[in-house]
């Protein structure tokens, strides 16, 4: 059997809106991926540990609270500290344009704002694994 792409979708921080996260989860499922959805209000440690246990290829983070510049780099660092060096990280939610470049520097490979076509996210993830598939 061909290896399935496994994706963890998580919501770090304290905001309680997970509609976007659920839409992405559904879209990735429809694209044939296995999506582990962890629910609301996850700490960076919880997210990194879940990614480790589930042996995912990709971590998608949905954040609307404005704390992305603190939380997202911390999650990337924790993933790397746990030895998940090749796990790709992308983010969605309310992220101002000027923060996108610094986040990419910090290891968040893709940043998707409101109104992003879900196909675009699917393509982005598939692109990352073109060689592996």
């Amino acid at each position, binding site marked *: *059997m061909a*290896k*399935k792409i*496994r994706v963890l979708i998580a919501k770090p921080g304290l905001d309680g809106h997970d509609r976007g996260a659920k839409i992405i*989860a*559904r879209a*990735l*499922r*429809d*694209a*044939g*991926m*296995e*999506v*582990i*959805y*962890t*629910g609301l209000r*996850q*700490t960076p*440690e*919880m997210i990194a*540990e*879940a990614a*480790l*246990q*589930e*042996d995912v290829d990709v971590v998608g983070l949905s954040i609307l609270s404005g704390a992305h510049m603190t939380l997202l780099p911390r999650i990337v660092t924790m993933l790397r500290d*746990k*030895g*998940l060096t090749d796990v790709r990280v992308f983010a969605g939610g309310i992220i101002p344009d000027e923060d996108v470049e610094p986040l990419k520097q910090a290891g968040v490979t893709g940043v998707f704002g409101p109104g992003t076509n879900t196909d675009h996210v699917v393509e982005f993830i598939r692109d990352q694994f073109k060689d592996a598939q």
Partner: protein
Amino acid sequence: MAALIDRALAGDRRSLARLISRVENGGPDSWSALSIVYPRTGRARIIGITGSPGTGKSTLVSEIAKLYRAEKLTVGIVAVDPTSPFSGGAVLGDRIRMRDLAGDAGVFIRSMATRGSLGGLARATTDVVKVLDAAGYDVIVIETVGAGQSEIDIARTADTVIVVEAPGLGDEVQAIKAGILEIADILVVNKADRDGAQSTVNALHAMIDLGTTHNRTLHHGALMEVNSASGSRARHTARDGMRTVTAEQSQNSDRWYPPILMTIATEGKGIDKVIEAIGQHRQYLIDQPEGQQRVRARVSIELELILGESLLNRLLAGLGSQAIDHAIDQVMKREIDPYTAVEQLQAAAQVRA
């Protein structure tokens, strides 16, 4: 691969997760891993939790795990959710209800998609359980997909099967249908604070009585000893107004009667009784011949499945896809029937082998 297995079994969680993926993805890689892992299995107690969607399985799993952790036992959890038959993808959401366990190094949770299996588990669930067993987890809890009536694979994977019901999901006719209720070692009526909980308990109770009439007799307020056809003695107590069979009463007989327990998992209520019943069932399997019979049946089914898979793979590899496509074409055009086609394919494979 050997190095990965060594690290995984030595307690490295990252390696354990990767080993589980290898095993989950199947193929020769996974077989060689499992043959190394197998001698180190057999120590964990394996508990299966099944029941209809929405009965509160995940929350119950989480609460059960918490109590075992309080006893300083380590817990592995395998939570299975369905794969979409159309896209092959899946959304695995059982972790949402298990957030209380996050951050506990004595717990390892793994979500699995069924990947086409229909029995309530993934094909590789049993193998993943073996890996967790060998890695030293004391208790392994398997949560099946939201199962209806015939998803009973869990019965050949777990030592103790808990079937979770909730009030208002079905009437008495549901309770006497064949299938999932028959595999229960313990019945849990969760959401017991809801209306109708007692009537669900009553319906289950009636079902168990119906199913065991040959072995026992119930009488108001009396403890009765009855000789069943096989000559084994079975005792059972029933009291007016107390319709729930307790785990203790179950244990007092030579054969196991599934206790019916009420829980409110979201508040952690009644879980201690579930843990107690699991312990008693475990003791029963140790004391009674049924324990060994179960293990034997489990190994027998497992060997049959692996043998079938292995033979099929070898046959398909020997034939090549062309021969099979040709057979499909012939059957579609009704030139031959499927049974003759299979005979011809088998004959062709034997000639080549």
